[in-house]
């Protein structure tokens, strides 16, 4: 009996030490959303569970290894005990009860992070190889829609992300917001986030999506309501100007669609050919022929990327469904890159 009491004390002591250690290690990133608070509450609970279970097994195990080890010159066998039904029933029943308790807690916790505000701001998110595109609600005055490759959010306002993918499966994850949701082609998935800390974060694709999966990271900016409004109106202004100047419009389209994830504008190597000094240059194709990179060639390559593949490039570029005006703007922009 004394042994059992001593062991119980040791188990509790080790549990406490493990919890303190895990707490001190600060394993979770900054809490930047109200959902993160709920998730971290569950994590704290799990720290206790993990610490207790570890201690519960390891303490008596190491105790046995020391106390019941065969000492030098010792002969004979261990005590002949082959089971105890009462004990087995106890250590089946208690975990069963614990599972029911945690099922209830886990369900409630899930409901907390899914709770939707009917006035949530809706942002449409499109993932594609290998960038993100965010479409904001239309400006009530001009009717213009802001599209950006950056996610800007006002603090304290719930946002409903309505997400889809134009090619393969991606996954939206801002570690500081905690929650994760896949983007599936052919359907919309939802994620609600209520940012709670002003700051700069990044959305990082969490579902393997091909060659440049690691670099599918775009900025996420949580700002005050005023800063957010200022950013939005500057974007609307930009869109107005762009409508009149094809080069500027092309530059905005390039940013919105994350083209530079593959095509550098600096001459650096990438997944796709660089655009620097591309216009008018002679391009060697994979079938051995050459072609001049003129308006017709560039238009074709954007519309039907597989029609002509540049030599030594293997990755397939997706089609983006640009309008003729947009393609003309893109080509006009590429032409300026000298």
């Amino acid at each position, binding site marked *: 009996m004394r042994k059992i009491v001593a062991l119980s004390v040791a188990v509790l002591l080790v549990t406490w030490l493990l919890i303190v250690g895990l707490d001190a290690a600060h394993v979770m990133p900054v809490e930047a959303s109200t959902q993160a608070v709920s998730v971290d509450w569950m994590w704290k609970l799990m720290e206790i569970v993990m610490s207790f279970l*570890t201690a519960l097994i390891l303490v008596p195990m190491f105790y046995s290894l020391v106390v019941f080890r065969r000492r030098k010159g010792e002969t004979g066998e261990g005590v002949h005990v*082959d089971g105890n039904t009462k004990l087995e029933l106890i250590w089946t029943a208690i975990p069963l009860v614990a599972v029911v308790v945690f099922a209830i807690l886990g369900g409630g916790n899930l409901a907390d992070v899914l709770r939707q505000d009917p006035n949530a701001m809706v942002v449409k998110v499109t993932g594609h190889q290998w960038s993100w595109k965010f479409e904001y609600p239309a400006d009530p005055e001009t009717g213009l829609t802001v599209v950006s490759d950056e996610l800007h959010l006002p603090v304290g306002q719930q946002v409903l992300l309505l997400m889809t993918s134009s090619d*393969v499966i991606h996954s939206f994850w801002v570690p500081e917001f*905690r929650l994760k949701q896949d983007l*599936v082609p052919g359907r919309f998935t939802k994620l609600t986030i209520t940012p709670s800390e002003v700051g700069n974060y990044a959305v990082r694709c969490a579902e*393997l999506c*091909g060659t440049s999966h690691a670099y599918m990271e775009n900025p996420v900016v949580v700002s005050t309501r005023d800063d957010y409004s200022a950013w939005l109106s500057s974007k609307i202004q930009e869109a107005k100007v762009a409508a009149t100047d094809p080069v500027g419009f092309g530059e905005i389209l390039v940013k919105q669609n994350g083209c530079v994830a593959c095509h550098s504008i600096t001459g650096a190597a990438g997944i796709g050919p660089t655009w620097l000094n591309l216009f008018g240059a002679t391009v060697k194709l994979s079938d*051995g022929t050459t072609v001049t990179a003129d308006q017709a060639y560039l238009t074709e390559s954007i519309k039907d990327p597989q029609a002509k593949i540049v030599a030594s490039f293997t990755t397939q570029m997706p089609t983006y469904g640009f309008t003729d005006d947009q393609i003309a703007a893109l080509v006009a922009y590429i032409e300026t890159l000298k």
Partner: protein
Amino acid sequence: MKHNPLRNAFVFLLAFGAVGYGAGLGIDRFVTGDFHFSGAVAAAFALLFSVAAFFFGLYGYRGVTRGLTFQVVGMFAGALFVTLIRTLMGLKAFDAFLFSEPAWVFGGLVGAIAFLFGVGVVSDWMKWARGIDTPEHHEDEPGWRKFFGVSLDHKVIGIQYTVTALFLISVGGLFALIFRTELAESQLQFLTENLRLFDQSGPQLYNTLMSLHGMIMIVSILLGIAGIMNYAVPMLIGARDMAFPRLNAFAYWLSVPAIMLLLMSLVLGGFDTGWTGYPPLSARAPVGMQMFFLGVFVAGWSSILGGLNVIATTLRMRAKGMSPFRLPILVWSALAASIIQLTATQLIGLSFQLVMFQRLFDMGFFDPAKGGNPVLFQHLFWFYSHPVVYVFVLPGLGVISELLPVFARKPLFGYRWVALSSLGIATVGSIVWAHHMFASGMNEYLRVPFMYSTMLVAVPTGVKFFSWVATLWGGKIETPTPMLFVLGSIVVFLFGGVTGPPNAMVALNLHLHDTYWVVGHFHDTIFGGFVFPFFAALYYWFPKATGRRMNEFWGKVHFWLMTPSFLVLTFGMMFIGLRGMRRRIVDYDPAQGFDHAQLILTICAFLIAISILIFLINFFRSIKHGEVATGNVWKSRSPEWQVPSPMPAHNYDVPFEVVGEPYDYGLAGSKYIEFAADGAGKKH
């Protein structure tokens, strides 16, 4: 042969590797008009030629060499056949990797079937089909040579499985070291954009190696547990062999062409989906994807047939008096694992086959543009791929329960509970698959029942842990190398176990999913549930198979080097995972501050590799030079240790009868088995 066969083998490997490389280069030049020195075609030829030549040098033109030759010829014949038909139909005959994708797939399939004919594992069946009788047993070649041809002896097949598994573990580990080295620092160091190997850039090659690390390790684990089950189960239950010896050999030899196909996927452009092969990404990847699907498909057949055999053997061939609750405990877990293998493996084969057909025949099963559903694939895939982790760990947990009483010198605590908990884990484990899909976009409410069922796994698993601790309590614990690995298993599997519940809680899972936390968690479960017990089993049964024991000192060095390195590795993974390190990325944002942690992880990976190297040297040296050990080395009560080692060809010369409980250590005068007096009822 005058020279040392192993030296011959390597000479042939190099020579024919060079010949294959030259041939591939030339043919590629002929078709495309360009030399591709690091291209896929030259590499594929070099791979096929060198592997077949290696075994030719080692063993001559029979058995495995003949099989591989048939596979190479079959592959090219099949591919040329499709190419010819495509030419006649006016379709594009040749493609980036010489043959078109349908030609490679058909060639791969024909090659795998041709292998089975070449190696000779179907010849008895073919003879029977023609009405020709064959002897019940075939005499095996003497010495090491019997392992390179078809043998029907379960012990030979068990060793074939085991050594193949060790080879594959080394290959998978090597892949891990390559990408682990790249990950030691942020930014790309050698797997860069400018690299071109097998027609892949650095990041593409990373994706291929990372994906193959996963699947090669999975196949190696399936082979490893098949090795343990094949070798041990018939001996433990007193059978002369498995129920279907020819099917047993057939199942083993299926795995060899499967491995060749998996290796082909590396050189034929690779693939970038991870081992999970989710469409639409897998519907777009290079030809390597198809070789991967085909390889898994063939390996799956091996696993299904192996499981069938273990079940039939356990149900029908037990010694007299061996009632269900007097079975050696390992047999219970082998049975539970085999039931999963037999019933769930079809689903991964099916899901991969559907993607294969989507690519080949434009059937839009998972293509949203054609009304397909990518999430459906994930359900089909995980319906096997979750239960299969219990196939990996159940035999390992069985090894722990089997060996613990031997070294604690005490009965297994709560035998019936431990036995039934294996079936409990197998049952609950088959209704938890969608917990891999909490973030997938499946129906939101479906996540809740899967959270419940997932947590339920903790109950039978807990029974095992408590019973193990209670077995140790009050024992006279000895700690030779096998016991060290058993204890290591319990500790490592415990860490894998306790890090499970956080994944089950849906909201928290949405943070943990697809991060290094999960990578750390499952490496703990697989090492604790398979790798450590596998080593324990190897050290433990090595004397039974060879009549010699492995070096104890180097065994302990292996353990004490591997265990701490491994724990630091997985704890480090979990830590950076919580902080935001995603899975399956070739590079990470330096701003996240993971550089130091990643460097430590890489160092740990290399320490583990060194310990495995020590093990391999010890293993192969001890076959010839180990200390002679023909008796009951571990003072075990188990039947196989009551006869001298190595075990004779048809196991027990005199059949035994079960007269007591298997683990009654410490009960004076008790006996588990008794051999029939005066050889009465002697077999033959």
